[in-house]
């Protein structure tokens, strides 16, 4: 997997100020970069002769609450011609997380970015249609955040049947 590392170094050589860290784990190489330069780095990865990563394979968000920077967006870039892949990762702070949108480079980033916005509240700058996608449009809060509680329904037994029933949102006469 050293060739992947050399590819990552290539990005490092080209954008020395931007690359924060190169992480290797189980044969995968992740390049952590500044979010401000995301589009330049992705354009370079796509157009460079030795990288040729012309396909955005996956896009997702992570919440590291309560650590700071709290959010991360994780990209997997894949090259069809050379069959290698690199992961890019950008971090965004907890208050006012903004990351540039990749929709100008790949239209396919449209829905995944909307999903990350919907679930984490990360705003993608330059996205043409940043609306909620999975949750109802009038939903408040961002469900995948770590400080967003997991809802549950209390189990019904004979002793608490009426109390549980009275809480359920049945239509009343």
């Amino acid at each position, binding site marked *: 997997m050293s060739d992947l590392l050399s590819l990552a170094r290539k990005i490092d050589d080209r954008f020395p100020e931007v690359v924060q860290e190169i992480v290797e784990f*189980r044969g995968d190489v992740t390049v952590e970069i500044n979010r401000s330069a995301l589009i330049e780095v992705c354009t370079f990865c796509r157009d460079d002769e030795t990288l040729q990563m*012309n396909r955005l394979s996956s896009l*997702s968000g992570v919440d590291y609450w309560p650590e700071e920077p709290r959010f991360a967006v*994780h990209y997997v870039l894949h090259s069809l011609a050379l069959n290698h892949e690199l992961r890019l990762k950008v971090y965004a702070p907890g208050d006012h997380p903004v990351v540039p949108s990749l929709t100008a480079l*790949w*239209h396919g980033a449209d*829905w995944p970015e909307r*999903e990350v916005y919907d679930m984490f509240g990360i705003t993608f700058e330059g996205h043409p249609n940043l609306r909620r996608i*999975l949750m109802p449009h009038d939903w408040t809060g961002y469900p995948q955040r770590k400080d967003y509680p*997991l809802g549950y329904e209390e189990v019904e037994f004979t002793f608490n049947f009426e109390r549980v029933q009275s809480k359920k949102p049945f239509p009343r006469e």
Partner: protein
Amino acid sequence: MTLTPDDLTHATEIESDHETVELALEELRGRVTDRAFTGETLLLNMGPQHPSTHGVLRVLLELEGETVITAQPEIGYLHTGIEKNMEAKTYEKALVMTDRMDYLNNLGNNLTYCLAIEKIAELDVPPRAQYMRVILAELQRISSHLVWLATHILDLGATSVMLYCFRDREHIVDMFEMLSGQRMMTSYIRPGGLWRDLTEDFLPALRKYLDYQPKKLDDYERLLDNNPIFLERTKGVGVVTQEMVLDWGMTGQMARGSGINYDIRKASPYTGYERFEFDVPLRTEGDVYARYIIRIEEMRQSLRIIRQAMDNLPDGPFRSNNRKYVPPPRSELGTSMEAVIHHFKLWTEGYSLPPGEVYVRTESPKGELGVYLVSDGGPKPHRVHFRTPSFWHLQTLGEVSKGYLVADLVAVLGSIDFTLGDCDR
């Protein structure tokens, strides 16, 4: 005629205040062309309760006559928060949720999730389990394609093929039931191997099935390939170009139908696919018909893989012997204190994975299925994200069906081959 809020309230006969309708109109702005507001084009709502949307998909259609101008899928009706729920469960218990994502590819989802865990844990899978995983994944691919063929052809007006396909799929789910006791939600593939060894009746049933299915596939092809209505409705419809494939991140048959030879089983083999000989069907037309041909041919190739795996199925353990991750066999519980401890620990606290993050991809029947798994060193996943092919493919619907007729939209929807469970998770 210019559309005003009053017209809208009248059309739906639902009491709604002026403000709500203004908001609804505002939401439409930018998503449809301006001509929709002057009444030149027709806005039509398709779904979420519509048989040819294959689930609860809503499509906002803008039509000029019968021609589709925009088709915007609205999803989320089947959103069950699987990714969030998995964060609250141990790795082993979260596995059962993966079954419920793509309900036509249950074992494939299990497999992908298990591969991610095994990659972080550096867990080795014995060869017998690997061969079995290949057999199961390919059986699942056939069953998913059969359901696709059934529903797709039904949308295009052929009823009998639908019945035949479901009859054949029944043989496959019966085999899954023999193995795991469940027809669909099997959870049979577990981290480190399988849940239990093969049952006695599985291999004879599989052998019988392998003799049965190829003839039936030929029958279906004979039924459809010479059918002028079918050809008329699929050839040259919903054309996907190579640029679109790269731009929209399409995989699977959507890519291979347009001449992009990308099959993850060949490009980066997992669970021992490199041991088997098979071809990747490829077409260059990029239309609905090309994707149909590819899926039919893929079923034949899957049968070929299953036959090789069945003939060479090695003996040996069916799951890893690493007791830190894999529960001990039931028989040891009565005699070994250590086994009891491991059993107790694994089923209460669960196991902790080393901190780190991986992305694993497999070739699901629909395209690239990826799992992004982040472990923080605890017994529960910090974050699981499923990159599902349905989600990435469905967003292309407007682009693929633009300029075709409404009736073609149904053909395009079918040929994308999505399940809403996979899309919304």
